[in-house]
C-alpha cells in the first residue's frame, strides 16, 4: 500500500519535475557556466575559465546599479505593503457580496499587457500629460512636474504592476485569521491600534512574507518598466543585463550579473524565512 502510494506520487510529480529540469535547471546551469567563461569581441565565448566577469561586476559602478535596484525593489515592496494592507482589510471586512467584486477589481488590471500599462503611464505622467494638465488646471502646480523618465515613474509603474501580488496573500491571511481573537483583544482593553499591532499583524505575518517575496523578487530584476519609464539616472540591473545580453552581446558578463542578482534574491528569501521562523509555530509556511 505504502509502496504503491510512493510510486503514484513519483508519477504525478514527474511531468512537472521534468519540465522544470529541462527549462529551468538547465538554463540556470548554462548561465552559471557562461559566467566563468571568457567572452570574445564578436559575441561568442572562449572555453577558458576566468573570474574576470565577476571582478568586473563587483566594480563600484555596477554595484551601485545593483544597490539601486535592490533599493527600488525594497521601496516598491514597502509602498505596495502600505497600500495593500488597507485594501485587503477593506475587502475582507466588507460585505461578502462586495468581496468578489473588489477582488476582481484587484485582479483584472493584471490581465493587461505590461507594455500597454507602461505606455498608459507615459501618457499620464509626461509633462503635457493627464496628471500635469489636471493639477495645472486645478491651480495646484505652477509648472509641470517632471515625473517621467525618473525613479519616481519607475516606482509608480512597478507598484501598479505588482500590487495585486501583495493584496491577494494579505487577503487570504486576513480571511484565514481567527476573528474571535480581535474581539478577545478588545474585550481585554485593547484599542484599535493595539488590536492591529498585537493581534492582527502577528496573525497575518505569513501573508505579509508571501506578498513581500512575490513583489520584491520580480521587481529586483524588472527591466521593461525601468526601461520605459526610467531615465538615464535610473538604470537598473535588469536593464543592464538586457543591454549586455542583446546590445553589447557580452554573454559572460551578463551571466555574471545575473548570478549576482540571484544571490541578492536568495539572500532576501533567506531573510524572509528567518522572519517567519521568528513568528513562531502560528505562522504558515
Amino acid at each position: 500500500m505504502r509502496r504503491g502510494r510512493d510510486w503514484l506520487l513519483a508519477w504525478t510529480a514527474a511531468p512537472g519535475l521534468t519540465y522544470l529540469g529541462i527549462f529551468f535547471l538547465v538554463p540556470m546551469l548554462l548561465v552559471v557556466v557562461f559566467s566563468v567563461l571568457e567572452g570574445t569581441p564578436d559575441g561568442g565565448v572562449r572555453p577558458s575559465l576566468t573570474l574576470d566577469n565577476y571582478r568586473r561586476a563587483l566594480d563600484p559602478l555596477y554595484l551601485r546599479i545593483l544597490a539601486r535596484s535592490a533599493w527600488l525593489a525594497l521601496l516598491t515592496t514597502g509602498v505596495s505593503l502600505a497600500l495593500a494592507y488597507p485594501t485587503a482589510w477593506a475587502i475582507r471586512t466588507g460585505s461578502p457580496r462586495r468581496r468578489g467584486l473588489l477582488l476582481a477589481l484587484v485582479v483584472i488590471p493584471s490581465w493587461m499587457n505590461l507594455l500597454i500599462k507602461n505606455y498608459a503611464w507615459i501618457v499620464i505622467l509626461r509633462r503635457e500629460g493627464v496628471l500635469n494638465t489636471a493639477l495645472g488646471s486645478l491651480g495646484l502646480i505652477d509648472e509641470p512636474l517632471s515625473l517621467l523618465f525618473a525613479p519616481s515613474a519607475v516606482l509608480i509603474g512597478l507598484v501598479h504592476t505588482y500590487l495585486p501580488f501583495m493584496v491577494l496573500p494579505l487577503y487570504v491571511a486576513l480571511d484565514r485569521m481567527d476573528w474571535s481573537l480581535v474581539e478577545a483583544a478588545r474585550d481585554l482593553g485593547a484599542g484599535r491600534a493595539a488590536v492591529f499591532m498585537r493581534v492582527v499583524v502577528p496573525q497575518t505575518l505569513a501573508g505579509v512574507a508571501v506578498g513581500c517575496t512575490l513583489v520584491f523578487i520580480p521587481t529586483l530584476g524588472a527591466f521593461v518598466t525601468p526601461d520605459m519609464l526610467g531615465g538615464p539616472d535610473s538604470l537598473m540591473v535588469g536593464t543592464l543585463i538586457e543591454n549586455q545580453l542583446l546590445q553589447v552581446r557580452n554573454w559572460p558578463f551578463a551571466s555574471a550579473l545575473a548570478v549576482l542578482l540571484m544571490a541578492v534574491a536568495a539572500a532576501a528569501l533567506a531573510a524572509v524565512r528567518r522572519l517567519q521562523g521568528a513568528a513562531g509555530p502560528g505562522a504558515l509556511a
Partner: protein
Amino acid sequence: MLPSMPPRDGPILALNDLRKSFGDTKAVAGVTASFGRGEYVCVLGPSGCGKTTLLRLIAGFEQPTSGDIELDGRSLVGVPPERRDVNVVFQSYALFPHLSVRENVAFGPRMKGVPASEIDQRVTTTLQMVRVLELADRRPGQLSGGQQQRVALARALVNRPKVLVLDEPLSALDRSLRLAMQDELRAVQRRTGVTFIHITHDQSEALTLADQLVVMRAGRFEQVGSPAEVYEHPRNRFVADFLGSSNVLEATADADGTVRLAGGVRLRAAGPAAAPGAVLVSLRPECVRVEREGEASSSRENQMAGQVIRVSNTGPLTECRVDVGGATLVAHLPQRANIAEGERVVVSVPAEDVVLLPADATDAQ
C-alpha cells in the same frame, strides 16, 4: 483577588427592556432583569434563543436597538468593549496563538497600563488559582482543551471584572472533564466574588451551577429565579419541558379546585387553585410513584390505574412509561424497582408535586 471597591448597594448588572434586532429578526426582544453582586447566573436556552446576542450586548460587541444595560449603576450603552469592566470567556477560548500562556494572561493588565511588577504578580496568582502555573511558558497550541479553558478563565479574571461572561464554556469538553470543571468554575466564582453570567444550553449544568437561573426562549426571559424555584414551579410548558423531561398533560380545572385529565382521572394540587377552564399539569418523572396493583397503599394521593408500556434502564435509575388511560406518564424509579413491562400498576403523585401551568395558546407547539 477580592474586588477592590467596597461593596455598594443595588444590582451589579441590570437589563432594562433590552432589545436587539437584526433586520426583521428580534434576537433579544425586550428583557428586564437585575443580578446581584457575586451571583452565579446561568442563562439557559435552546440554540437560537438569543442568549449569544445577550452575551454580546453585555460584552459590548453589539449595541442594543433599544433599552439599557447598567453595570454597577452606570449605563453601558455606547461604551466600547475595551472600556467596560466586563470580561468574556469565549466558547472557542480565543487564546492568542502567538503568545505564551503568561503573555496571554498579561495581555489585559498590560492594555490597561498596570505597572509591570504588579502584572507579574497578578498573572502568577491568577494562574495559580486556576492551577496552570506550570504551563505558563507554553503556547496555547501545546495545551489540551481543559488547560486552554483554564487559561481563558485566568486571562479574563486577571482583569478583576465586575461581571464575567462565559459563553458555553464547557461545551467543548468531554463529560468527565465537564463535571470537574463545573465544580472548579463554582469554586473560582466563590473565591473571587465576581458575578458570573454563564450561557449554556445544558439544563443540568445550569441547575448545578446557578444561584440565579434565567430560562430564555425566542429573545425573551421565560422565567428568572433560583434553580429550585424554576424547577419546582415552572411558569409554563416550555420551562417545564426544557428543565428536564417533564410530564406535561392537558387538563381542565374544576370549580372544586381539582383538575381533570383528558382521560377522566382527577388530581388534587396542593398549590393555589387554578381558575376554572383549560390548564396544563406538570408532573416530574421523579415524583411519580409506580407500584404493583395490590401492593400499593390506598392512602396515596392522586391514584391512577395504569399499565406499564416500557421499562428502560438508564444507569442510575429506571425509566418507566405507564399508560394511565388517555395519557402516557414517564416515571423515574430507583434502580432496584422491580417492575416488568405489561404489568398492571397503580400510579400516584403527591398533591404538592402536581404543578399547574397556564394553558397558554403560544405554548401549543
